[in-house]
């Protein structure tokens, strides 16, 4: 029943997303929402591995950029349709996740984190030296002026991001509520005990890295059309790594709702700060909020809300 209610909400959000494009004509709304939706996807993806399984990924930017650059290759080589770009971007990142997971997840502890950190540097260097995708000088990707059923390409991008974000959150919800999620939670709490109880730890961890990679790639695939000029330092920007880690930490890492809440709040705060404070202060937002939450509410907003509700109830 709960699942059905959520399915209803998900469908309503997607339909709402489309209807929004019919009634709202503000370009700013779409661009600002795009960024927040992108962070919802990144935070959700990060949380599947970092929150559920307890393996911290410092290289979200690399997965994001692989999605973006896969798109660029396909646009340049085949002028491929958007949906193929998105799927291919996701798959390329999923494969990357699987590969990096396979190489490092047999070991426990920080090895995976170190590998993801190195991955971002290695891939960025590779892209800098790959002339076909623009190399260090960057590449221009022109978006179409219009799109059938939408009054502009920006609206189309927004709608697709709504759809992808809903699918990502739904995937996280499914994982959390299935035997997979319970297996991942067992790994997070005590990997040896889980292994002894018959939890297929390596396979589950690989599943988590693959799904997480797929969603991050999916978030990165539309990026070339959003920004129209892609160069390595913007695609591999540290912001993606920091935000996709900070947002679930602030929202709460134990449920699918945490990254969603964290991404909406922090993403919106950053967007507002950009157009209001206009100074170096807005760079501090993520850091200060993150430190405050780690100290005051280590379970994030969702954890804090549950604790308060429990206290009130009992």
């Amino acid at each position, binding site marked *: 029943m709960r699942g059905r209610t959520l399915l209803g909400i998900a469908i309503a959000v997607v339909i709402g997303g489309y209807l929004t494009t019919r009634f709202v004509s*503000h*370009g*700013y*709304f*779409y*661009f*600002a929402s795009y*960024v927040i939706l992108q962070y919802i996807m990144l935070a959700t993806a990060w949380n599947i591995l970092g929150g559920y399984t307890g393996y911290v990924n410092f290289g979200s930017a690399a997965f994001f950029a692989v999605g973006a650059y896969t798109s660029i290759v396909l646009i340049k080589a085949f002028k491929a349709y958007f949906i193929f770009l998105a799927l291919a971007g996701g798959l390329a990142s999923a494969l990357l996740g699987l590969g990096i997971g396979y190489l490092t997840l047999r070991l426990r502890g920080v090895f995976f984190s170190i590998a993801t950190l190195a991955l971002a540097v290695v891939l960025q*260097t590779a892209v*800098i*030296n790959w002339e076909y995708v623009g*190399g*260090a*000088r*960057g590449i*221009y990707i*022109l*978006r179409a*002026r219009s799109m059938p059923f939408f009054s*502009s390409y920006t609206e189309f991008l927004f709608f697709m991001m709504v759809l992808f974000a809903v699918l990502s959150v739904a995937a996280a919800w499914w994982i959390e509520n299935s035997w997979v999620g319970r297996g991942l939670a067992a790994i997070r709490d005590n990997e040896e005990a889980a292994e002894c109880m018959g939890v297929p730890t390596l396979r589950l961890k690989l599943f988590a890295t693959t799904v997480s990679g797929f969603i991050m790639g999916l978030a990165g695939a539309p*990026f070339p059309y*959003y*920004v*129209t*000029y892609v*160069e390595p*330092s*913007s695609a591999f*920007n540290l*912001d993606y790594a920091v935000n996709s880690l900070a947002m679930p930490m602030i929202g709460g890492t134990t449920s699918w709702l945490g990254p969603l809440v964290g991404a909406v709040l922090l993403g919106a705060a950053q*967007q507002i700060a*950009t*157009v209001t404070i*206009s*100074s*170096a202060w*807005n*760079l501090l937002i993520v850091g200060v909020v993150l430190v405050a939450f780690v100290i005051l509410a280590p379970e994030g907003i969702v954890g804090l809300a549950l604790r308060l509700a429990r206290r009130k109830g009992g």
Partner: protein
Amino acid sequence: MKRTGRFWVRGWTLAAWLAAASLLSGAWAPAARAAEKPIKIGFGMALTGGLAANGKAALLSMQIWADDVNAKGGLLGRKVELVVYDDQTKPAAVPAIYTKLLDVDKVNFVVSGYGTNLIAPAMPIVMERGLVFMGLFGLAVNEKFQYKSYFQIMPSGPSPMTDWSRGFFDIAAKQTPKPTTVALVGADAEFAINAVSGARQNAKKMGLKIVYDKTYPPATVDYTPIVRAIKATNPDVVFVGSYPPDSVGMVQAAHEVGLKPKLFGGGMVGLQYAAFLARLGPKLNGIVNYDFWVPEPTLNFPGIEAFLKKYQAKAAQAGVDPLGHYLPPWSYAYLEVLGQAITATKSTDQKKVADYIRSHEFTTIVGKVKFGSNGEWATSRVLQVQFQGIKDSKIDQFHKPGKRIVVYPEAWKSGNIQYPYSSAK
């Protein structure tokens, strides 16, 4: 209670008087021109992040322009107001900033932020709405977009990639003994790669033999191995395409290693900033590098001195480049062009203003400006400047002419080149 009530009554009476007074003054004001809405010019600028030092200097000079214009009564009798957001040197922040400016703040005009990476993401938004768009130091941005209402104030010229270093190689061709070999080196990043690829074409055209052609990662710390490798090939000409930190590293390494080509420099960003001029001091002697404006008598355009005086007075407080010779005159000038077009057309209509800019010549503090069909300058005015006679690291010497001699193009030449490089060193 009673006292409170009396206070309220008095408050209302006062409010009524005030309202009446304001109504009366409104009625008597002659058509209230000053109350007309200001002309808003919006842009994103790098006020934090990698390009912040230049972005802040640009913003300061733009504010000086707005003050100058407003002191003369504004544009079309309306005050000018700048609406600026910090793009944090992040291209991903640009689309939201420009749509906010246009949809929420309802600015009349938008101009670009500083640098190719931050201009390009605004282009599709500007194009969708058919807006006039003045660009500030983007290299060949319009090559892909081919947008006819885009105008770039940086004087790269109609073929930005090759025009950038053409002067450097023209100088080389005129010298005796004529150089025969060239080393090309540049950072692995947007501008440097473009500068080196233009230099490569120019070198080939001139018939120079390329003996070294490599890039280095932007985060390089030690430049001596690179310079040693260049020295081993014994080139006559060394062309460098570099960003500020690497420009300093390259110059220092060249001195350490004893690199002595006949011509050295080309596309080194940073050698125009006060901080680096002071840091390198006499080590700069002999280097021939690009620039856009230096305080030489041939470039003493009307208004530039007055502008620099105002800028330099405010620079220390704003914490920006104290000389302000590199970017600030241009960020003033690109608004000057826009302002002059608005005044001449007596309109804020985008198409009318764009058409006017496309078809007219403008007199600005950086000289006469005329745009070509692709929105770049109709003819290139990339200067090649040689550092001469620098004896110490004091910044004052750079305020005056004589230290950065314009050796190219002929039209703006202010002195002769000291050749080869080692004789000026």
